[in-house]
């Protein structure tokens, strides 16, 4: 078991007004799964992803990662987990325009002990995998949206993460580039990477083998594509 959350809660407090965003969420994710977390905006899916990816702390409940309780880690420990265990793909790419493509991919390694020479070897290999080895010294603002997201994917993989979080990875892309990015993610999953995809688009979510639907801070559906297919088939009948 890679991820196991039990009764996970998150409240936002603003001037004494407590707003529950996650109201006790429970599920497990195994190593190598491709899971999409789907829901409308304000449903709590982003908050859930932030907690799962060690960017935020839960208010209640238990979060176990690789069997260890990680719900009470401090800021530095969370940073350590982000550095070693997860990779991020953002909707808005978040590339540094003043750095080259290669430097952008190497960025997460700045916060590790990996020697500088190894960093660029590794980054070049990953950029080759996403088909951008001819763009190493480009500034990201010279790239197309699809290329930018492929750089971001390479960056997400550089630290050999246990799990890749993709937050609306196709949200800023045209359909062709979006399809290309999803194909890469699928390929990564086939190679054994665990991928957690957060989206509000059903078509994107359907690339995953498992879909967790969330609404108003609670899970309303959690099933494999096979079961979803069956449900749709039943409905069709």
């Amino acid at each position, binding site marked *: 078991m890679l991820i196991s959350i039990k009764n996970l809660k998150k409240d936002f407090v603003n001037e004494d007004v407590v707003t529950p965003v996650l109201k006790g969420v429970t599920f497990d994710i195994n190593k190598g799964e491709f899971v999409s977390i789907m829901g409308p905006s304000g449903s709590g899916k982003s908050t859930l992803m932030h907690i799962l990816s060690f960017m935020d702390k839960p208010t209640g409940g238990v979060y176990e990662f690789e069997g260890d309780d990680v719900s009470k880690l401090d800021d530095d420990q969370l*940073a350590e987990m982000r550095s070693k265990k997860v990779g991020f793909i953002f909707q808005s790419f978040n590339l540094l325009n003043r750095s080259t493509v290669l430097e952008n991919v190497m960025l997460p390694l700045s916060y590790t002990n990996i020697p500088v020479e190894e960093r660029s070897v590794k980054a070049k290999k990953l950029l080759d995998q996403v088909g951008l080895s001819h763009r190493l010294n480009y500034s990201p603002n010279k790239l197309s949206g699809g290329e930018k997201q492929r750089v971001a994917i390479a960056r997400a993989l550089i630290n050999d993460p246990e799990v890749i979080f993709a937050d609306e990875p196709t949200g800023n892309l045209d359909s062709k580039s979006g399809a290309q990015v999803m194909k890469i993610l699928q390929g990564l999953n086939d190679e054994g990477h665990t991928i957690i995809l957060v989206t509000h688009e059903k078509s994107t979510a359907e690339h995953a083998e498992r879909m967790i639907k969330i609404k108003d801070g609670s899970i309303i559906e959690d099933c494999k594509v096979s079961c979803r297919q069956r449900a749709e088939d039943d409905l069709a009948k």
Partner: protein
Amino acid sequence: MDFFESVQTSWQMIVRNKMRSLLTMLGIIIGVAAVMIVLSVGESVQALIMNEIKSVGTNLIGVLPGYAEENGPPASAMGIVITTLKYEDGEAIINSNNSHIEALSMYVKGSDVITVEDKNISASFYGTTASYIDVENAEIEKGRFFTKDEEIGNARVVVLGGKIAEDLFPDQDPLGKKIKIKKTNFTIIGVFKKKGGGLMQTQDNDMYVPIKTAQNILLGINHLSFIRAKVDKIENIDSAMEDIKIILRDRHKVDTPSEDDFNVRSTQQAITSISSITDALKFFLAAIAAISLIVGGFGIMNIMLATVQERTKEIGLRKAVGAKNSSIVFQFLIEAMTITFISGVIGIIVGSLLLFLIAQVVIAYGLSWSFIISPSSIFLGCLVSISIGLIFGIVPARRASLLDPIEALRYE
């Protein structure tokens, strides 16, 4: 984030916003240059004064009329005429049995406008003793200095400083010529070798006549301006000074040192008191110049706060990919320190160029100025500028590190 990456990032930031960076750095550049100039000019002035004193000799004792606190300024330096010191006092000292006093000279001072043909030159004259030459290590270029007989015999002879001799007689040999001082004719019997340089009395521009002639004929006085005694070794200065005090107290019928109507001081003392004064002045001016550094520091802080705001999203990203708060603090501190260090280096270069110009100008005025850039001021400039980056970078760096990664990533 390692050191070089941070330095590289800040270099990129500086280059990308050239105008903004320059304006930000200006405060530190001016501050470092100003402090450096003040310290170096101070050192050069000090060296100039010290050379002056040393050229006269470090084994000299001066006796001045009137009471003075130890290391305080003598009353005569304030322009007060005190008549307590007499020719006989000097005679008594040299005739005492202190074997360490090698030579002793006495002085009175006056000035007049000297007319030769159609040239008018206003010059100072000193009435002094024949022993002047030994006491002051003076060198005669032409002719001779006056003798003891001339000294006491009201002889109307004069020895000219090298420069005034040139000014008065540009194309002629001054020896044997006559000049009028206070309407009295004097025969020129000698010319001093030019010493050059010099801030205080230089001998080059002065004229020297026998002391009795000056007292009786030119000035109509019977007191002295000062006495100088040359001691054989620096170690014997203190005992010679004590002996001189005892002799003078005895002659002036003074019972307690607080009633002294004279004061005795050594060149060593003068060196100490002059260095303490110039040091104080130097550091006072440097402190004023340093205010610019503090102002510059706030400029750095301001620009770093703006940078943090501009790069909020980047900070969010860095935190998302694993940067700890301490890494972010480190990065922004290094950036601030890089900016201030570069400013410091530019300040040192600007300061050195200005010091070079100052030296050229001062040398053009004929003073023997040494172009000093002390390694300590370069080191200090670097250290201070880096420290300013550290001190004024802390607040922005800390603010950056405390950004919430989720909020920061959403920042537009």
